[in-house]
């Protein structure tokens, strides 16, 4: 039960999925499938988002109040649940970005040292 939460086999650095979702939603409201497509496309198929990680992550963010969920009509005329970034979510995005770049910089510094 417990292990499943971290066991998602995405090849992302831990903790980055939520940041990527937040970033995606900061452009426009999107449904889950759209988020997955968007990420896959932008990363040129490097990042495949597992549904098993995506939807629990969306729910987690919903619980925390970072995103709002509402039913709308999608581009192909189907009912879909669209997620929208809230103010709290936007703030969180800033936090996560800062943390990530700090972490990334640190990792790069380590890797560049010979």
């Amino acid at each position, binding site marked *: 039960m417990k292990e499943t*939460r971290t066991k998602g086999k995405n090849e992302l650095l831990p903790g980055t999925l939520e940041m990527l979702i937040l970033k995606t939603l900061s452009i426009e409201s999107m449904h*889950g*499938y759209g988020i997955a497509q968007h990420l896959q496309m932008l990363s040129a198929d490097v990042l495949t988002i*597992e*549904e098993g990680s995506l*939807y629990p992550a969306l*729910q987690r963010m919903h619980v925390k109040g970072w995103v709002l969920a509402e039913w709308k009509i999608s581009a192909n005329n189907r009912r879909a649940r669209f997620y929208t970034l809230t103010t709290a979510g936007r703030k969180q995005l800033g936090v996560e970005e800062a943390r990530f770049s700090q972490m990334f910089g640190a990792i790069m510094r380590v890797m560049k040292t010979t």
Partner: protein
Amino acid sequence: MGSVLRRLLFLFRRHQFDRDLEDELRFHEDMKARALADADGSSGPPSDAARAAARRRLGNPLRLREQAREPWSFTTVETFAQDVRHSLRLMRRDPGFTFTALAMLALGIGLNTAIFSVAYGVLWRPLPYANPDRLVIVSSAQQTGRGVKAFSTWAPMSYERLRSRVTVLDSLAAYAPIDPTLTGRGDPLPVSAVDVSPNFFATLGVNPARGRAFLTDASASDDRTAIVGQSITIDGVPRTVVGVLPPDFTFRPVVGNGAMALPETDVFLPNRWPGDTGRNRFVFLLGRMKSGVTRERAEAEFTALVNDASIVPSGALGTEGALAPNVRTLARAAGLQDYGTGSVRALLLILVGAVSFVLLIACVNVANLQMARLTARRGELSVRMALGAGRRRIVRQLLTEAVVLSLLGASLGVFLARIAIGVTLPLVPQFALPRVGGIVIDVRVMAFCLGLSLVSTLVVGLVPALRVGGAAFGEGLALHAGEGRTTGDRQGERLRTLLVAAQIAMTLVLLIGAGLLIHSFVRLTSVSPGFESSGRDGVVQTVRVTLPPHLYDEPERIHAFARGMLDRIQSLPGVKSASLINSPPFGMMFIQGDFDIEGQPKPKLFAGTPKIDAGYFKVMGIPLLAGRDFTARDTAAAPKVAIVSERVAREYSQGGPGEGLGRRVRLDDRGEWLTVVGVVADIRQRGLDRPVQPMIYVPFQQERGGFVRFVSFVARTATPASVVEGIRAEIRRAAPDLPIDTTVTMDQAVAASVAQPRFRMLLLGLFAVAATLIATCGIYGLMAYAVTQRRREIGVRMALGAERLDVLRLVLTRALRIVAAGLIVGLAGAAGVTRVLQRFLFGVTPTDPIAFTIVTLLLMAVGLMAAWLPARRATRIDPCAALRAE
């Protein structure tokens, strides 16, 4: 904060959530399928194959849904609920275990709750006054050659002087218990009342619910009972009710520190005790300390004041127990809360200790049952562990089971406690418990009960749970598979054996305590009081009246009343002989004083000084050893005479009782000399546990002092009930306004005097029996379980030629070893613990060999008996069946 709220809302919209998620995932699946179809180049709706592929990519939908739901749920709470459901299911499946465990826990927790509610109500519940912790009873004590002498009462004059001088108190009030008669409405009614100083209620910080308190500045003559403004007649004086106290108000004056609490006070009368000469001490002092003042500081100031002769005159305070001159007097300020709870406190604490033993034994037993059950449940637990349940998860499950069990046990226990209190409180001997009104099961008692269930949870749950944590459990699965079960779970069994032995030890301590009290009680009741309360001629019946001063102001009137009544009582049908006395043995009142013997130094003795009429010794069956009884000729005009008891006669003559005749004695220094005309046998006047009291009997008709207002008619009769009715009718005819205080036979009076030890004995006996029952179940359970576990071993032994007797011996020896180990520990424990019973023992030492021996043998027999049943079952094991079964 917000997230918790959202999660709470989620609980109510679960279905909506599930539907949304369902839709969302279906949408996702559709989109995926379409994308796959697009990739294949086919247009139009996606094929079934594409759909299937999409679904495969999506993975297990159930799991996905679970995962998506998880952020919303309160995992801890939900697993707990799950565990609770599981526990309840398990309990339902094993009604035998459930019933036994619940019964034991309910018994243990119930007894504890009951005793705690009594102890709390009597000892610790804050009194219903404002800031009760600042209220103190001021008394005094002197260190004399014969030990510390304590004085609880003061002269009103001293009170007034202390009140005007004291600085550490907000106010100082005085009260004096009296027992007046309410007349004018139906039968005359004796009421319990207290004379109080006008500032009494202000000192307590209590306001009347209706009307007003007493005026402190005017000489008011008022009081309260029924309706404000109405008039009632008390002791012949009409008084106006000025106030009614709130319903929860309670005031039970305590007489002396430690002994008795008088009944709840009905009436408060204002009094300033005019005409007090400062010689008689009879008021109690109740003070309210100023905020921030400690008891020590209050005592220091009072000690200084008390030793000032201008405030408390020294040496002239009545005869008995006078404050000695030239001895420093120490003032004491006892908290009102603690005052008068001395011996009750000790008893209650002992009872609290005893019942916590019972609870501990019960818990240990349930833990034991749980462990035995755990072994049986190894399969289940192993499977759960194999399926991925962590050790912590299992331990949590077991603890949850214990919580459920304990809470259920606690609720049953509260129920039980309610019944126990309802049934036993009326049986508590009168005056034995102060503040009975405080004994209720309320929030605090419930909190205590909850605490107890927590303790029992820990014992019941943690012990088995830790066993699961132990390494031995790893082999569980293997055992479940049925391999090599010859001797059972050794480690678990060792622990269980230890627990059962501990139970035996604790039970023994309780039983020995009860045994000591029983032996002590037997000793006490075999003491002869010195008079014959019942015999061939029937029983001695007493009827007590108090002649109020407003009706009988002159001794002559009292003498005439007594003489006339006695004549009529003696001619009542059924009366063999009758007489009277002012202070009957084993009564509420005992008057004593020092005395002189002519021509001898003052004896260092106090003598009881009852006033009696002719024939008293015949009625009571007290042998007259020499001389004569009083007669009708010993009137007020005749020469003053006395009859002394053997103990007094020995004080002045070494020869036989006859030599005591003709000497003269004197009661208190100013009295007349009385000629001794008779010597009677000694009696116990105040209780079977008290030493024989020297007695100097004086003719009732020759006494003019105040104590003749208390008249107890005594009659020997075979038909006490009809004689009481006869006497009652005669009194009503002669004096319609005279209430009858009490009507008891001497048998009843003697029984009442041992009511407290009997009650103590019964209570502790009850607890000990409960503990024994539980411990017996423990031994039985352990042995029965062991026999089942070792079925095959026993079968093998029998197949190899062991006789039934050998098997019996095998099982019984093991039981005996456990019991013996428990007994040895218990004996050592008891030897150390029974000292707390010291003050309740009569004629028995705390390490009384008789009680120790009998109780130990008894418990051993009970233990072996409990083991006997499983042992016999072991002998019936069919070797073939046992061997084949595996």
